[in-house]
């Protein structure tokens, strides 16, 4: 399962992309996030309780209860700050 990190999450975790193999009880995006949180201090900071984290599964925005089953890529990032003005 490919996981991508952007912006502040990428900075904290120290990488933009990795392949992970979560256990079978990880069914949702929220459960994946909780499981990732235990991989190290950078992850713990990126996914700290209260951190504003958004997710996309296969390049579509999803909620935390969305399934990760069969997903090609799952991305985590802060609320977007594009555009301008």
């Amino acid at each position, binding site marked *: 399962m490919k996981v*991508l990190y*952007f*912006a*502040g999450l*990428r*900075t904290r975790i120290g990488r933009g992309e990795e392949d992970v193999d979560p256990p079978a009880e990880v069914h949702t995006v929220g459960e994946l996030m909780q499981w990732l949180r235990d991989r190290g201090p950078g992850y713990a900071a990126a996914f700290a309780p209260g951190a*504003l984290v958004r997710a*996309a599964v296969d*390049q*579509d*925005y999803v909620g935390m209860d969305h399934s990760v089953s069969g997903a090609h890529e799952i*991305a985590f*990032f*802060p*609320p*977007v*700050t*594009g*555009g*301008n*003005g």
Partner: protein
Amino acid sequence: MIRVQRDDFDVGAELERLTAGRTDLGGLVSFIGLVRGTEDGVRAMTLEHYPGMTERALTAIAEDARSRWPGIELTIIHRFGRLERGDRIVFVAVAAAHRAEAFAASEFLVDWLKTKAPFWKLEERPEGSQWVEAQHEDEERASRW
């Protein structure tokens, strides 16, 4: 037309292209977002984006706009990479038969870009680089639509 690119763009040429071949368009509204210098010394920023998802998301919102305002022509160009104060970041242009549609559709697209396009700004500040946090006000503006 949707483009996500590092390079700057020619506003006059983009506007010409938008209405080329159509004679039923009476109003053309464009928005250009610029890197604004702030009082606390930001002189440049780097825009990160999610390649692939960005194009996908912009194409989807363009289709949404075309279904809300049938017959419009539109262009969205969003830059990424390092940009300095005064540089153009984003360009949205809508041509429509009447001005009310052109204004509404371009505001819709700009509001949407601020809250849904997967871009993130890293500002260069005197004390170091810092990720910009999202503005609650932008979410409110986007929820109008």
